[in-house]
């Protein structure tokens, strides 16, 4: 636990020292989501801005009126509204993939990383990160596919019993287990990414293998740290939504914006905290000499040929 705590604390220190990365990523996240919401925004402004019926959506939230609104032909189609948001989410993912090497290098560095070094790290590692992403997708996809398949079968079996709560709790427990396993895979690839950046490793498969070994040897410590931060993230999300509901008057657009965005900023921060934990771990590993159980190779005398 103390080791966990120290890793979590070390990660926290790194993340706090480099807050600017979280802020930049948050601004990217906000900007892309704003672009993604443009079609939606335009449609609802067109219908609501001069209508007294909009009151039911401002002073409270009438779900039926909202549904009626989005069903209006002038609102546009559902895919037409959701597709931009999805596309900009993918753009944010690509931006994260592109800029993460710079962040990791910045986290490992004991000084403020100059901008050119940041971008150089991003440029040098972009293809490596794409390959790591493909590795991750294949492995995590296969594992998730198998585990969710098993879970589905379990839940179906539970559904055949007369215990109504059993399918729900089977689903819940199974999902938690799968998330822990997927978190372990995420730890593995976070370490691999960090390894690629810190060692400037062009052969990403070596980093993948190294990441796997490190995760296996330090499973409890690393997954525990990630799990702890994930719980903090969940608490942040839940707390933010409760706060939003409890203290922000329904008609306060600015209040809702501030609380919701603060929640998302802190939520994003927790992921960077996990990243910082991976960096702290790798930096320590690199600093510590690795003692391996190397036995002396027996030297045999060459056979004497008479």
């Amino acid at each position: 636990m103390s080791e966990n705590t120290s890793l979590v604390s070390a990660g926290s220190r790194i993340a706090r020292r480099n807050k600017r990365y979280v802020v930049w990523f948050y601004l990217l996240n906000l900007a892309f989501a704003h672009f993604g919401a443009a079609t939606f925004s335009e449609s609802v402004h067109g219908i609501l801005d001069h209508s007294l019926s909009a009151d039911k959506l401002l002073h409270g939230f009438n779900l039926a009126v909202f549904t009626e609104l989005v069903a209006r032909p002038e609102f546009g189609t559902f895919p037409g509204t959701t597709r931009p948001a999805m596309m900009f989410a993918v753009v944010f993912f690509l931006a994260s993939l592109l800029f993460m090497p710079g962040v990791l290098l910045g986290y490992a560095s004991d000084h403020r990383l100059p901008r050119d070094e940041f971008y150089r790290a991003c440029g040098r590692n972009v293809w490596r990160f794409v390959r790591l992403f493909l590795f991750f997708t294949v492995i995590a996809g296969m594992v998730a596919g198998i585990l969710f398949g098993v879970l589905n079968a379990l839940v179906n079996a539970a559904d055949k019993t007369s215990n109504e709560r059993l399918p729900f709790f089977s689903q819940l427990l199974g999902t938690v287990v799968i998330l822990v396993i997927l978190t372990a895979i995420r730890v593995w690839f976070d370490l691999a990414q960090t390894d690629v950046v810190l060692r400037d490793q062009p052969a990403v498969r070596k980093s993948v293998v190294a990441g796997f070994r490190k995760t296996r040897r330090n499973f409890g410590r690393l997954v525990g740290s990630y799990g702890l931060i994930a719980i903090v993230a969940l608490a942040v999300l839940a707390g933010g939504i409760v706060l939003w509901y409890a203290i922000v008057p329904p008609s306060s657009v600015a209040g809702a914006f501030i609380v919701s965005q603060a929640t998302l900023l802190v939520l994003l921060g927790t992921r960077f905290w996990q990243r910082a934990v991976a960096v702290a771990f790798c930096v320590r590993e690199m600093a510590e000499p690795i003692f391996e159980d190397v036995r002396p190779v027996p030297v045999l005398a060459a056979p004497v040929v008479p």
Partner: protein
Amino acid sequence: MHLRLRVVVCLLAGLVAHGWAQTGLAIPATTSAINSATPLSQRVVAYDMEARYDAKAHSLDASETLTYHNLTGQPLDTFPFHLYLNAFEPTSTWLREGKREGTRGQNFETWDNKSYGAEEIKKFEVVGQGDFTSQLQYIHPDDDNKDDRTVVQVHLPTPVPPDGYVQFKIKFHDQFPQTLERTGWDRDSILGAQWFPKVGVWWYGAWNCHQFHAYTEFFADFGVYDVKLTVPQYEVVGGGGVEVGSVNNSDGTKTVSYHGEDIHDFAWTASPHYLVHEDTYQGSMGAVKLRFMLQPAHWSQLGREVGALKEIMERFDRWYGTYPYKTVTVVDTEPGSPAFGMEYPTFFTGGTSWWEPEGFRFGSVETIEHEYGHQYWYGMVATNEFEDAWMDEGINQYTQIKVMDSLYDPSTSSLNLFGIKVGQRDEDRLLYLGGVDLDALAQNGWQYADNNSYSSITYGKTALMLLTLEGVIGEDTMRQAMHVYFTRYRFTHPTKEDFLKTIEEVSGKDLRWYFNQAVYGTQALDYEVFKMDSTPVDWYKENLKEKKGETEYICNVWIRRKAEFVIPVDVEIKFDNGSKVRERWDGQNRWVRYTYQKKAKIESVEVDPDHKIHFDRNVFNNSRTAEENGAPARKLANYWTFIGQFFAQFLAWWLV
């Protein structure tokens, strides 16, 4: 009296009593299951059934003795019977329609043999006329599906005279399906509905006995039911009417007996898991035993369900009329069962879940309200559900709005969770907007364009058109009309005109203009504030400086009727000096313009400012403000942005 005349009278009396005298048959006039000293309906049928349920095979073997009283005024030599369970054969009309339209969430992408259900008549005997088993004929009065076996007909060589009786003795075997809709088994439970051969209704000079369709319901005559169900002893059993006995048999089974009066169907259920709670409601005709059969996981919802049902019963008793039966049984079906939310006389299936929060009223409370409402609009006022589905579902949906809105705040009578609200009338609007103008209310249930249109029109539009009618004749008058309709037509089979004429009679108004559009027509309703402007009278003057309260304006407002439905509407114009003007437009033309000259500009215009019209298909264009208010849209855009950001973060969290 002259001797010859006396002889003629005696002969006539003898002829009238022919059926009785010949067969010694009668429909029991008992009143042990109702809070009334005399029968409440004109009892046409008496079903006496003994059934043995095989819980492992989900099948049933039964014998049925049906006594039929010919009150048609003419001799009858043909009798059709419903065999509803044959709907669960892959070639049935029900399944063909279900495959085409989907029903109760079923898409029938593939056929599962567990879904198979059937009802086989093993023996069909007419007392005094012989065995007709081999002469039974399947008929399909509604379509050309020769493979549909949901209606069977028998032709008798000797007609049953007017006022005569006939008795059928039927042995049959049921194979219940895994529940697809309304009836069947789920896990180790059974909901036995539409499970016995049921005679059609002689209605307006002809037999009314429709095939089982994907989304229509039922129609049957009132009478007396005596049912003995033999089931394994571990089963907890419930049924319509009053339980009159339960005997354990030596073979590990038990026989539970039910007796029902002035009802037109009998459904039952059995499960080893039900937890039973009994309570009493003191109605204005006497005590009613409330029997709740709950799933163990739902026991925590009991208090809520009992409280809700009592409140609902009180509203119906006070507003519409008395509940005369001695029992009502509420069955909480297996989780996920498509048998949930269905009505049978004195017995209905509810639906809830173990996690249901108080603010979530879509579930248990709303279902209890709806299905209890059917005890009135179907159970007692027994309309033809095949041909006038709106008269049971829609009228019931309307009274549901009234009752639920009296139990909760109207804006939250369906949902009130974390600031998210839905009222009953909002819910019906959403239903209505799914169809709007594809079909008229007055339409055979199976002839709607699709399932969506059926739900939209029979439930949503009916409820909203009756709610709108309140605005035309007044809420109190409407309630009085509903009360008169109930008391006048309970225990009968009224038609749509019976209902509409009752409203006209009570309100003292000719409402044909409304009914022709709302009931018989498919017109959509859509009024719009088309445009408005406020132009200074002295607009032509150079350097005109407008001053609030001093500058005089010519204000124009255009209101437009965008669709075909014509209804008089109020229009409210608000000016920026605080003054208001109300206009009444008959809506006959496509548009109307109102012009005012005032020292004020128009602030806003609203059609139907009291919100009395509930089925305008677009409420957003019913009003227009001069000033733009972007706050509501910004609020929604903020929600959308939040969701988009969260989704993007989630994606990046896992993938990078």
